[in-house]
């Protein structure tokens, strides 16, 4: 082949790669543009502290969804963080062996389960037993989704901590459990925190597992045995409704949710950079 042709081909390839790469970001900018343009105008203090109003009345807000999201995230954290960190420690401490292999595989499978299937599970385990939709069942569903992320973050972080640190502690006569809890865990705190933040950000935007667990509610609900609303659930219900007033509420809620989720991801990044495990 002619040299000039090859050089032109090379240049074209580079330009093409750059073009396609940035073209893939077009939807991102469009999404951010639309939720900002349509959402920001409806976001103000009253929007955040008012309850939704019936169609035709203006001034409705999303307070119930904000509070509901907070309740669900607290519940899911209670379910997932202690168990996830403990399982992560186990995997980091027992790096080989049958149980470790199986648990690792289970974590991978768990991470791949579609969120709607987790919703069915929480429905079967809790909603059917209690006979009603509840925040608790939604929290458990989200907790199951958080688990694999927390476990992997804990495992990966603790694996990076050098053995010399543990050996130094053990050589001083510190018992095993104190070595783990007082030396190894604090050293890996940054990585674990990142994992927790990322997992919270991931489930904060989940809708599918809440459709038939937390279910949604137009009232302010503080009882974890009652149905609650959440931001994603509210966006879904309002976006698929035929009323323009509700659509603008949904845009506002989308803006709030996107700022919250992307903000959490940003904080996670800062935490990683600041508290990176370095040895």
């Amino acid at each position, binding site marked *: 082949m002619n040299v000039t042709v*090859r050089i032109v*081909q*090379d240049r074209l*390839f*580079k330009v093409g*790669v*750059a073009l*396609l*790469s*940035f073209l*893939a*970001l077009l*939807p*991102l900018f*469009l*999404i951010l543009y*639309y*939720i900002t343009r349509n959402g920001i105008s409806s976001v103000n203090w009253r929007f955040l502290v008012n309850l939704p109003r019936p169609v035709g009345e203006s001034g409705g807000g999303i307070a119930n969804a904000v509070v509901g999201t907070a309740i669900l995230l607290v519940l899911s954290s209670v379910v997932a963080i202690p*168990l996830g960190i*403990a399982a992560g420690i*186990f*995997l980091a*401490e027992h790096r080989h062996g049958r*149980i*470790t292999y*199986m*648990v690792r595989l*289970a*974590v*991978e*499978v*768990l*991470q*791949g*389960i*579609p969120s709607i*299937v987790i919703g*069915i599970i929480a*429905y*079967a385990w809790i909603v059917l037993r209690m006979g009603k939709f509840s925040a608790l069942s939604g929290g458990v569903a989200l907790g199951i989704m958080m*688990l694999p992320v927390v476990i992997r973050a804990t495992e990966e972080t603790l694996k990076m901590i050098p053995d010399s640190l543990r050996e130094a502690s053990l050589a001083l006569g510190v*018992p*095993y*459990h*104190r070595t783990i809890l007082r030396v190894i865990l604090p050293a890996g705190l940054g990585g674990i925190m990142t994992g927790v933040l990322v997992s919270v950000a991931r489930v*904060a*935007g*989940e*809708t*599918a597992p809440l459709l*038939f667990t937390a279910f949604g509610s137009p009232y302010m609900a503080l009882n974890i045995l009652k149905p609650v609303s959440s931001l*994603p659930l509210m*966006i*879904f219900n309002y*976006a698929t409704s035929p009323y323009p007033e509700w*659509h603008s509420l949904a845009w506002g809620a989308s803006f709030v949710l*996107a700022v919250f*989720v*992307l903000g959490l*991801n940003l904080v996670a990044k800062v935490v990683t950079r600041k508290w990176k495990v370095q040895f």
Partner: protein
Amino acid sequence: MKVASGEAARAKHDRTGSGENAFRGALYVAALSILVLLAAIFLTLLVDSMPSIKALGPGFLYGRTWDPVAGRYGALPFLVGTILTSFLALAVSIPFSLAISVFLGEYFREGALSSLLKSAIDLLAGIPSVIYGFWGLFVLVPVVRAIQIKLGVPPFGVGIFTSAVVLAVMIIPYSAALGREVIQLVPCDLKEAGLSLGATRYEVTRRIVLPYARSGILAGMVLALGRAIGETMAVTMVIGNSNFIPRSIFSPANTMASVIANEFVEATGKTYVASLIQVGLLLFVVTTIVNIVGRHVIKKVSVEI
């Protein structure tokens, strides 16, 4: 005095010993509970879909009609819908994710441009799926409708094509991240050998880098496919909720995930609920297989390198 302090030390030692055992025990319990959780999820799906498995048999998989009012539960329309949307999404996403992998793994490994692209991709991965669906419904659907009017097909706007486009955007970050990593792992001496023989960068990328990294790139695509199959909300909002076997890629349809999201709350009757749970079971099995295949390919790659 000495004896007493020795005893105290032993007592203290025993205490810490039991604390240690309790701690180790707790770790074991935590790890085993993950296994129990997964087993319980599978068994729950299996047991709760038993009424439908018994009533419908294998006809569930190839039945073409889903009509709960008439008591007919054939899941074939959803299988077809899922396969069409997820593979179409993968096909749409491949040029972009490959370009991003090459861009970040080969041309611009560091620097302002690459960190800009990387952060943007992270943002893309972080946006909740319900927002993708909402955006798709209000921005993409009118565009698709206009295209359909031009093409002379029924202008639904919603349907398989729209879902595939939204899904493609959502899965790009997943395959691009893995692709970038494996492309970065291609040894420099291989590339330098190619360049020193007079190959252009394009030729090196095409004939050395991509073939070397192909199994990792493939693994990324498989994992992205797994995500596309299980994605629920964005698809539910733009696929059009139709329980017939789609006639073209512009038809409204339903995927396995979206039919559960659309019908589960309203489902009445034992067989109806059980058949939806069976769809969930099927979804669970399919995504698990796809994920395990993907992870297996990744492990093979990391062993090779």
